[in-house]
């Protein structure tokens, strides 16, 4: 059998694929963060909570309203997106003129409130969401057993990531958005409703997190703490990619998934820390991040 650094090729390939799937999650989450930070300059600490709310909306929607997985893929992000817009309109806008730190504190506080409330009602053990019927089972790929659902996660996440990148970087709407954050006064003079754009952007960013939450629901137990566990890693990914860089977030997310996957084979004890090691290296050598523009 071919060996790669003492690991059979089949196992190695399997780990790469799994790493890529995890990376797709990182990409999706860090993308939302990057959009919000890049365009609104808000450090959204409520992002993990929004991811968690997406998963909870899926679970509770099925339990109480009979909404199935495919409908939830659309409805949960919509619901969380609306909630996000409400938060932006009612709370974040009022502190828009203050230092970024206030936005960070506000969103962090909101995250704690959402989490605490749900812990109170649902506990922390988490509940299981069944894998949709069409995606049960898996493929025998020759080097590993690949569950269908994980293949779907990879596909869905990649499609959404690149669609987002395309909208922001290649369409007229995206151009308005970027211009609106660059020089809001001028854009408003051209008759563009900038505050509305900002609200929509925040809503869209958190909807991306909620979408990741729906994808995660059948994979991990749906619990109120699922978001905060992931958030720190996702922030590290954004920092490595370069705060606010859309493409940077996507590519770094996937790359970090791969690096983490390989660490799990060669030195599993460090799997939780390897991303932060990369972050430290990047901050030392390229403080603006791999894809960031020097300020």
């Amino acid at each position, binding site marked *: 059998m071919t060996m790669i650094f003492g690991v059979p090729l089949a196992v190695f390939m399997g780990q790469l694929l799994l790493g890529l799937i995890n990376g797709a999650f990182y990409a999706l989450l860090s993308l939302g963060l990057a959009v919000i930070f890049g365009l609104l300059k808000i450090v959204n600490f409520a992002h993990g909570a929004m991811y968690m709310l997406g998963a909870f909306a899926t679970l509770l929607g099925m339990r109480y309203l009979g909404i199935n997985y495919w409908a939830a893929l659309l409805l949960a992000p919509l619901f969380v997106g609306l909630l996000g817009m409400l938060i932006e309109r009612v709370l974040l806008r009022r502190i828009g003129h203050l230092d970024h730190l206030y936005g960070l504190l506000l969103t962090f506080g909101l995250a704690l409130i959402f989490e605490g409330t749900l812990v109170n009602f649902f506990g922390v053990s988490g509940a299981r969401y069944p894998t949709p019927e069409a995606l049960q089972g898996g493929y025998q790929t020759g080097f590993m057993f690949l569950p269908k659902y994980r293949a779907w996660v990879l596909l869905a996440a990649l499609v959404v990531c690149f669609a987002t990148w395309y909208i922001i970087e290649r369409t007229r709407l995206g151009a308005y958005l970027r211009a609106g954050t660059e020089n809001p006064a001028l854009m408003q003079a051209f008759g563009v409703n900038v505050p509305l754009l900002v609200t929509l952007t925040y809503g869209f960013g958190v909807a991306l997190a909620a979408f990741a939450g729906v994808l995660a629901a059948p994979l991990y137990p749906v619990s109120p703490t699922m978001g905060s566990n992931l958030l720190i890693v996702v922030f590290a990914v954004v920092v490595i990619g370069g705060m606010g860089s859309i493409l940077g977030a996507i590519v770094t997310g996937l790359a970090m998934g791969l690096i983490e996957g390989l660490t799990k*084979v060669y030195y599993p004890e460090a799997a939780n820390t390897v991303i932060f090691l990369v972050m430290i290296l990047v901050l030392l050598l390229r403080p603006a991040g791999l894809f960031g523009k020097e300020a």
Partner: protein
Amino acid sequence: MRVAGPPPETRHQGTEKKHNSNFRNHDEARLIHSARHNNKLPNRAMETKMTFIKKTLASSVALAVTAVMATAAQAEISDGEIRIGYLADMSGTYRDLAGPGGLEALRMAVEDFGGSVNGAPIQVFSADDRNSADVGANTVREWIDTRNVDMVAGLVASSVTIAVTRVLEENNSFGIVSASAASSITNEHCTPNHIHWVYDTYPLANGTAQAVVQQGGDTWFMLTADYAFGHALESDVTRVVEENGGQIVGGVRHPFPTDDFSSYILQAQGSGAKIIGLANAGADTVNAINTASQFGVVEAGQQLAGLLVFLNDVHAMGLDATQGLLLTTGWYWDMDDEAREWAERYYERVGRMPTMVQAGIYSSTYHYLQAVEATGSDDPATVREHMMRQPIHDFFARNGRLREDGRMVHDMYLARVKSPEESTHEWDLYEILTTIPAEEAYRPLSESQCKLVQN
């Protein structure tokens, strides 16, 4: 380490406190206490008293006299109240296995006891230890200093428990550990001031690993949480597997906590072992089992052995993912009529079926209150000695007895998780396969490293 052995000064305070309860009330004791420090004694009577105490302590018969004094002095309930402090993880990873449900079980025990002991009302208060040894130890220190707590109940994460028992020993207070897993709590970390009620890692490994090997699962791949508890459980399991003729063919130590187990499950699949042993707990176990089910581990012929699995974990994962899982438990709500009757009362109040820990909190509190009632005292040594003399038998513990190392040994059970077809309702989750007799389940005293055990 800040929790390492009490400094001599604190020890001295501990002895002094015992004598202080000679005085009728707290204020008087405090007066003497402060007077002594200021070297200004309020009157001659007290001076004589203090000199007497000093002399007694210094004399060669100190031991005997102190013992007599202690019994005489403590034959009453301090402050005219029994104060129970419930310390547990109320909001984190371990919330559902003890947490607010355990507090409710404690309140049930107090209510069933009538709310008072020999006319002394029972007061219950609680705090969240947030799984931090520092927070836990400081909370208990504060309870001792400002509220004169008589008994600390709950006690979940092993790290918190070990820190708290040090504080209890320094201040001669009392604690009943119901939720912690580490067997070291009554081994190298034993104190005369705490007892361990529900289960520990020793019977977990003994029960599950032995049963699995005997059923033909003789090659194991260990999935271990990379911290003290995981390592301890792993070594216990390794010992049991090898003693029974099995073999550990591989393993991986994963960071604590881990969300995504797919990589480790893939490695376990590649190892060719018949059994994948899970030396982890809580969310980690849940995630590992879920992932294994997604990757078709059981269908491919491998079996999982969960070494520390609680009822709430199985409930959360659902029977699809957990069916067939073997586990060792100290109690199961549906195991017989007595257990069921209590569990149903609990269910009416909490809306969930109790875990073994929550049932154990009721059981241990009730026994504690009975001991206080029988001895008319809340002195730790008196109460503990009485508890050791009584056989322990109730809806929770069968053939139970409290050993000198503080371990309450009782029958343990090997259970199998039911399949969705076998289960008749939401909480119908386990089938009890065998009973592991109390005297076989736990670490024998002959192997004990506890300072209270004469080997």
